[in-house]
């Protein structure tokens, strides 16, 4: 019993220490914004490798998720003769939930894991420490551009995901199952609210982008500089970003849509 308590205390303390280190790290990264304003080309390069290169997986997944929503929604709604509201269903679920959440999960698998591995390997091959010895702060020069690139790309990718998803739903619903095209769009336009649905979706994906990039970069920076350490850090990044995304999604949903 005592042993269990001891272990519990030990693990809690370790986690708290790590959280503390992570917070200091985050503050350090945030001060890097001055450097980015001075040299925007650093950020632009990372926007390309973090954001643009994630386009394909987001587009393809968005299309399929939208198409599946179209199919499933049609079968349920047609029982009630309400297949005209298919557009509302597809768009609401995408913009509110699936867009931000699924694209954050895909982002964790595609971009965050790559960030952790990159930073971890740079640490293992002494590149970060070499940079420190050249009087260049690696947190500002290497990590801050990657952090802000993740932070800015995430909402854009989520918006892209939702948009492609709606098109996929329309393709299946209107093109394949014969829902009226005008009803599909006009119902969606009438029902979807900018601040309630779209803005909340953007806020969600901004939060996810912030947290996921923080986790990925900190795990890489904090990794044990061996091959095993980097591989573990990469795994932790994907697992922790997924948990953080889903947990935060619940909290944010409860805060945003709790009153209706």
């Amino acid at each position, binding site marked *: 019993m005592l042993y269990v308590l001891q272990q519990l205390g030990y693990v809690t303390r370790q986690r708290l220490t790590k959280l503390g280190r992570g917070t200091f790290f985050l503050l350090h990264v945030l001060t890097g914004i001055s450097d980015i304003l001075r040299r925007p080309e650093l950020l632009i390069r990372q926007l390309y490798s973090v954001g643009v290169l994630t386009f394909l997986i987001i587009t393809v997944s968005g299309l399929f998720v939208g198409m599946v929503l179209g199919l499933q929604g049609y079968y349920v709604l047609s029982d009630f003769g309400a297949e005209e509201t298919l557009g509302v269903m597809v768009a609401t679920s995408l913009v509110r939930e699936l867009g931000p959440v699924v694209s954050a999960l895909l982002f964790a698998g595609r971009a965050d894991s790559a960030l952790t591995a990159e930073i971890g390997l*740079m640490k293992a*091959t*002494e*590149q970060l*420490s*070499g*940079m*420190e*010895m*050249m*009087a*260049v*702060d690696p947190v500002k*020069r290497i990590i801050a551009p990657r952090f802000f690139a993740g932070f800015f790309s995430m909402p854009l990718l989520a918006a892209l995901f939702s948009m492609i998803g709606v098109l996929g739903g329309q393709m299946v619903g209107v093109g394949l199952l014969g829902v009226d095209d005008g009803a599909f769009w006009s119902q969606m336009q009438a029902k979807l609210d900018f601040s309630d649905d779209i803005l909340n979706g953007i806020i969600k994906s901004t939060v996810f982008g912030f947290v996921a990039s923080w986790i990925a970069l900190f795990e890489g920076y904090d990794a044990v500089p061996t091959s095993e350490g980097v591989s573990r850090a990469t795994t932790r990044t994907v697992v922790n970003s997924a948990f953080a995304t889903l947990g935060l999604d619940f909290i944010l949903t409860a805060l945003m849509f709790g009153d209706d």
Partner: protein
Amino acid sequence: MYSAAQTDNTVSIQNLSFSRGDRKIFDDISMQFARGKITAIMGPSGTGKTTLLKLIGGQLCPEQGCIVVDGENVHQLRLADLYDLRKRMGMLFQSGALLTDMSVYDNVAFPLREHTRLTESLIRTLVLMKLQSVGLRGARDLMPNELSGGMARRVALARAIALDPMMIMYDEPFTGQDPISLGVLVKLIKTLNSTLHLTSIVVSHDVQETAAIADYIYLISDGKVVGQGTPEQISRSESGWVRQFMRGDADGPVRFHYTDDDYLEDLFHTEEQ
């Protein structure tokens, strides 16, 4: 910078102690590194020679004692001042630590672009001069993964001297080199030291190569300085430990076995466990 008013030591270490976990890496050691000379730190693997360089560079903090570099106490500087001091220090990492996403040219240009506002054409001139001095001007468009180990270390050396530092620290420059690259590196270190008036600190356990170029040698083992002097003094040393290390003898004060307990007793203990 080289005025006579300053001490003639670029780096001076006083009563330094440092531990990692429970293991004491340095126990109250003092060393002096004379300006313009090549000083070697030698010792068996795992005696914390690299740690010492990181302490000098201010990447680690000592528990006790202080390190003075060019008249400034490294561990009492503010971060901005520490970075200023580091611009005057070059360091050659064992792995080279080249930035793998940049070409050789961009690697050497990196410190210049970060710390100066020179025009690209001036940077080009400087980079080509530095690469010429290590004999790799023709390799400027290669990526680090296309270089051999010896070439990577020479590129790293060109990068380390890009800002014309006053001192340069070499971390195991000779390890894992073929005889030709080794000869090239030995000659380079010597030449750079004399032509650029650098203070060089060479950490190594390659006895012959290091003794050939060093002006002064410190031998460290188990956190203590066990021998020091010019290469001649070291080679004439009476100490059994120093003699064993310099000649690479298998027998001597340094045991082959990790532990001291009795071999037979250990073998017969299996049933009890």
